[in-house]
């Protein structure tokens, strides 16, 4: 019964418009993909929804509760977590301490399925290694696991597959599956179109800060305006 609703959301930096008039709703337990060319405003969208940056206009509603303008820690504690595009862990401490901090700061106890997730990523055997000594792909997975360890009901993922080797990308599928098994909904910003097609029953297309399309991938990706705005750009990204 965890619903995220975004109404008329806009963000400007000074005179520069990043996005405007973004409207969508995510029912509980759903999976939503967000695609768009570089600079479309996807990361800023995640920053604004998660409270890292304040919106210029619009409302963000979580479970019927208006969370617009709340600080990032408050939104995290209300059950909305996020991951970062770059690897983002506490680099000087062990994997164990990283996850321990996430559980402690999230204050909702250890979520179901965390241990099996660690085992499947091969992190359970490396709990005492310093996190920045891990291979890039595992650091990135650790970042995802930490967001999950706060026990969220809605999770925003910022390009989880970016920088991963092809063989590692199924980790993202695995992760999203775990999160959904735990009953949380997932919004996933991604350039990897295979991954989006494979996983998301519904996608949003963001172009130059405007919501261009909203629907099932097969339908949306066939639209000429989407192809014009975006698909030319994906050749190199895919």
């Amino acid at each position, binding site marked *: 019964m965890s619903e995220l609703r975004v109404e008329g959301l806009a963000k400007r930096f000074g005179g520069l418009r990043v996005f405007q008039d973004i409207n969508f709703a995510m029912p509980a337990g759903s999976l939503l993909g967000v695609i768009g060319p570089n600079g479309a405003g996807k990361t800023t969208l995640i920053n604004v929804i998660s409270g890292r940056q304040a919106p210029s206009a619009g409302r963000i509603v979580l479970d019927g509760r208006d969370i617009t303008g709340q600080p990032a820690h408050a939104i*995290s504690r209300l059950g909305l977590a996020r991951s970062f595009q770059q690897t983002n862990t506490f680099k000087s401490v062990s994997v164990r301490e990283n996850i321990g901090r996430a559980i402690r700061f999230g204050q909702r106890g250890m979520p179901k399925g965390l241990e099996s997730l660690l085992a499947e990523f091969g992190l359970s055997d490396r709990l005492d290694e310093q996190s920045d000594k891990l291979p890039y792909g595992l650091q990135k997975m650790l970042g995802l696991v930490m967001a999950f360890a706060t026990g969220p009901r809605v999770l925003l993922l910022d390009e989880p597959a970016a920088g991963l080797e092809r063989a590692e990308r199924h980790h993202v599928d695995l992760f999203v599956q775990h999160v959904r098994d735990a009953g949380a909904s997932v919004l996933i910003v991604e350039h990897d179109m295979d991954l989006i097609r494979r996983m998301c029953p519904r996608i949003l297309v963001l172009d130059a800060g405007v919501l261009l399309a909203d629907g099932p991938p097969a339908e949306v990706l066939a639209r000429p305006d989407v192809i014009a705005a975006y698909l030319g750009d994906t050749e190199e990204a895919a």
Partner: protein
Amino acid sequence: MSGSLLPRARLLGGAEIAAILVFAACFAVPMMTKSVLVFSVLNQALVGVVAAQSVWIMLRMNLMSFASPAFMAIGGYTVAIAGQYEITNVFLLTAAAFILPALVAIPLGALVLRLRGTYFVLVTFVLSQIMQLLLFETPGLTGGSNGISGIPPVNVLGTDMATNRQVVLFACGIALLATVITACLTRYFKQHFAAIEENEILAESLGLVVWRYKALGFVVAAGIAGLAGFSLVTMLLTAHPSSFDSGTAVDFIAYTIIGGRASILGPVVGTALMVYATNLFGTHGQYAQGLYGVLILVVVLALRGGIVGTVETLVRKLRGAS
């Protein structure tokens, strides 16, 4: 495994216990010697280390504060003014010297903790400049440029701390108290402070209420600085604006950085060595500043862990090799 992911930290670690033992041991020094020089150096170090701990608490969260002289002034002048009303009870004065600066730090913290990095450095520098000017501009309260002299000795359980030896013992007590408070605070919130130090944005996104810990650190650091001010005016028997010059903040920062910012032993070792070295210059104490400068350059460029961090690394390497 759930237990192993959330290890319970012991209340005090090795470094904290070592620091507390150092100051407990200091009580023995005045019993073993009558040397005026030893008393003087030890007393200076005991005042300096308290101020350095105040700086260190904020450095735990990657905030470099130049405000310690301002809070030292509040603590020191509180005691000096109380002395004019013949209040000399040590418990009363200690409580006042800690609580008053801490109270002042609450609204100030709400203002200045919105800033990070170099902006925080600048705003705390400005704070200590303002305090300096305020001391000069409020002669009715603080004696202006004359300061307040003739502070009566502190009274501990019926005994006036009047001799050099007694003053040193009192300074030991203040240093021990400050160390216990600092150790408990930084140890209890170790994970929180370390997370803020390393990656504030990540910590906040995981749900950590960053401002709450920064505010707590700022308020306690102000109280600790107040204790340093108390110890300083007790040593000098006078409260004077020049004792709380914003330039002295540089000394306390130098002690902490040179000693090492990763462990509570850093400010302790740094202060002890720097105060000792300063006294080696004898009457040319001002030359010690050059030594601080060189050591700061060396630590920042080559030995990032400072003295304590470097020794720790060496010990670990030696152990690994054997």
